[in-house]
């Protein structure tokens, strides 16, 4: 029982990180209908930027953890979102009117570019960061097993929940969110009623990249090591999460992220770590066979 609760906590933490990345996929998919394959690498760039900013703050002599976290969070979101904006500007906007596979290929190309760029700029070695947020609480204790909830897990879950609430508010209540939903339904019509479609799409990429930056920071804090290749696996998992939850749906992305995180952690905890990815992908396949548009997705209407 204690073991189960511990795995549950770990799973929710991992799922929150996946969910944050998955939101970026699902927002972009909802608005321009393309798989942004380079999003996982934006997450990786975000993690690297966070790492460098931490080291930079330490070299400036700022050691107060809350201050450092806040500064890194905000600056990381800012710098990463410029990467997201540039990505859209260079690789996707020229192809917006083109056929659907064209931006998919540029996305794969940009993913290769980002990985190799970071590898060139920061070399290929694994980068460790000493734990920044320490300590935690002991929830349950028995002779065999102790259930702990560490501060970093609390931080991840709280940040994710807060960001989810902020983003739900932005999407449902503000004029930017209204414009985004309008573009999602019909881009031409939205532009006719005065929505600046280019700007809305750019801002969607900026928002997705900012969330990926937060996910990158959380990943860095949680695991303590990053390298230039983390974007690929995390990106595929997050995309799986977005599809599982129903691509285009924000709550779906969060739910899908949680499910994928839980499956992975429980599979690794109770069976073998080797096949945890197979378990996550198999659940995806099974869900899609019975619910072809994901858990919370709108069923696609076939039109002639």
């Amino acid at each position, binding site marked *: 029982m204690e073991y189960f609760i511990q795995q549950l906590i770990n799973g929710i933490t991992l799922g929150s990180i996946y969910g944050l990345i998955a939101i970026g996929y699902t927002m972009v*998919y909802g608005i321009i209908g393309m*798989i942004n394959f380079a999003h996982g690498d934006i997450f990786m760039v975000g993690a*690297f930027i966070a*790492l*460098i*900013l931490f*080291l*930079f703050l330490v*070299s400036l002599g700022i050691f107060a953890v809350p201050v450092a976290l806040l500064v890194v969070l905000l600056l990381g979101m800012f*710098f990463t979102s*410029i*990467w997201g904006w*540039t990505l859209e500007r260079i*690789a996707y906007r020229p*192809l917006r009117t*083109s*056929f*659907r*596979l*064209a931006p*998919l*290929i*540029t996305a*794969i*190309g*940009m*993913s*290769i*570019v980002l*990985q*190799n*760029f*970071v590898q*060139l*700029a*920061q*070399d290929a*070695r694994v*980068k460790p960061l*000493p734990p920044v947020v320490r300590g935690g609480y002991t929830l349950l204790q028995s002779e065999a097993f102790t259930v702990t909830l560490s501060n970093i897990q609390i931080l991840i879950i709280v940040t994710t929940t807060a960001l989810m609430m902020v983003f739900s508010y932005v999407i449902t209540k503000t004029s930017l969110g209204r414009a985004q939903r309008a573009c999602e339904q019909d881009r031409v019509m939205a532009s006719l009623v005065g929505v600046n479609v280019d*700007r809305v799409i750019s801002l969607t990429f900026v928002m997705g990249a900012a969330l990926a930056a937060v996910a990158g920071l959380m990943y860095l804090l949680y695991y303590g090591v990053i390298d230039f290749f983390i974007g690929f696996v995390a990106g*595929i998992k997050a*995309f*799986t999460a977005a*599809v599982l939850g129903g*691509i285009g749906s924000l709550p779906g992305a969060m739910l899908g992220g949680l499910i994928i995180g839980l499956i992975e952690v429980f599979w690794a905890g109770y069976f073998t770590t*080797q*096949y945890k*990815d*197979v378990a996550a*992908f*198999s659940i*995806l*396949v099974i869900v*899609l*066979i019975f619910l*072809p*548009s994901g858990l919370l997705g709108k069923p696609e209407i*076939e039109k*002639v």
Partner: protein
Amino acid sequence: MAEAVGGVIGARTADDSIGSAVKDAVITGLIAFLLFVVIVGLKTENAQERLVLVNRLGLAVALAALAAGVRLLLDLFFWRGARARAASEPLLPAGSIILLLGLSYIIGAYFFIVPGASEGLATAAADIFGAEEWRARTRIAIQLLSFAFLAAFVVLTAMGLVLIARRALRLAGIGAGREASKSFLAELGAQFGLALLVIAVVLPLLVVGPQQRYALETASQVLTYIMLGWGLNVVVGLAGLLDLGYVAFYAVGAYSYALIGTQFGWSFWVCLPLAGMFAALWGIILGFPVLRLRGDYLAIVTLAFGEIIRIVLLNWYSLTNGPNGISRIPRVTFFGLDFDRNGENTFHGFFGLEFDGVHRVIFMYYIILCLALLVNFVTMRLRKLPIGRAWEALREDEIACRSLGINTVTTKLTAFAIGAMFAGFAGSFFATRQGFISPESFTFHESALVLAIVVLGGLGSQLGIVIAAVALIGSGELFRDLEEYRMLIFGASMVAIMVWRPRGFVSSRMPTVVLNERRAISGSHVKEGAG
């Protein structure tokens, strides 16, 4: 940020003055600076379990300035000039092509044949820049250029020869005279595919000397990718099913041959059809659950299958030996004659030749050439059969297909199975060529590469895939000297080619079914792989 967005877009359409170009360049430089200031400007160095920051702000500023400069040049000369030129005459008239041809041959041959020539230039460059590394850089640049010139010359010459042969045949009264009405250049261009085939057949005679082995091995690799591209083209280009896990079938083919060959000692020629059958079977098994899925759901599930197969290969130690892979895979034999130096039935012994390791390479090259041509032939024939027409109809409109009574289940499954079978053939060839396989050769990167070849070539175009495979794999080989920048260049050129030609290299399509007259249509009239 919003102002920057408006500025960048607005400047392109508003006015064409130099001032706006400078403004664009400054904005680009600022954005590039913000991009690079953290990730390039500060380098993390691993030092005894800890990280140390190294200040490289100068490099970040230099990169930003470079971006601004490139933007300025593009704005002033390229984008603006292209718009003005669009109205006037074609870019290169026939006379200049012939001139370029002669010139390129002279330059290419000079540097390629005279060994001291490139060395002299390299030394001169090293003197001018005062740095020794410019010697190697200049040498690489000259090699690349002269190679490109020579390649262009060989292709154009072969096109001319094929054209002459065709005209001679037509004069002699053999073959149809339909193309007579075309202009000379159009007729020459139409020989491109055949010319490539002629070059491919005589390639072992064209390249001789110490480079032969390397050239043929590269060519075999390119042909493997061409074959994979043609196979995936059946699934994505013809049937319109977006498959991101194509490498799984390549892996099934490779492991089928590797396991059967090492465990039972069966010959390559027995295993080749078996590997194709196994791969086709897997195509059906994996195709079955995804029949209902469309578009991106199909893409992600095929990607998941590709990853699942790779992870299973990686962890199933008792069968596949895990990440260590399978080594000592039997080599291919020529009607029972092997290519070893010593032994009973050796190729060189039977034909009374001197032993030469390159014999095997030449033989492997012809095997993959024949396999690839077989794939091409079968695909072209299938396109004309009812099943091929059903694939293309399925790509264009699935609902219309169903209402016309086409069985979409069998149509999709045959597309998956046949595409997978071709990958299985390519996989078993890969296994016997390498002699060693491990799951590392079958990552998602390979699937993405093959898909990129298909889309860059122009979906559904057989010739386009050849061009794209030669461009991507061949350029990867050419830039081998620039090891660390190779993948960066590769990714960037993928993006650049796609932005430049979104419909791929070959953007016209030949319809399979025609009324009265056969003529190419634009690729934009054909639907993409939507699943």
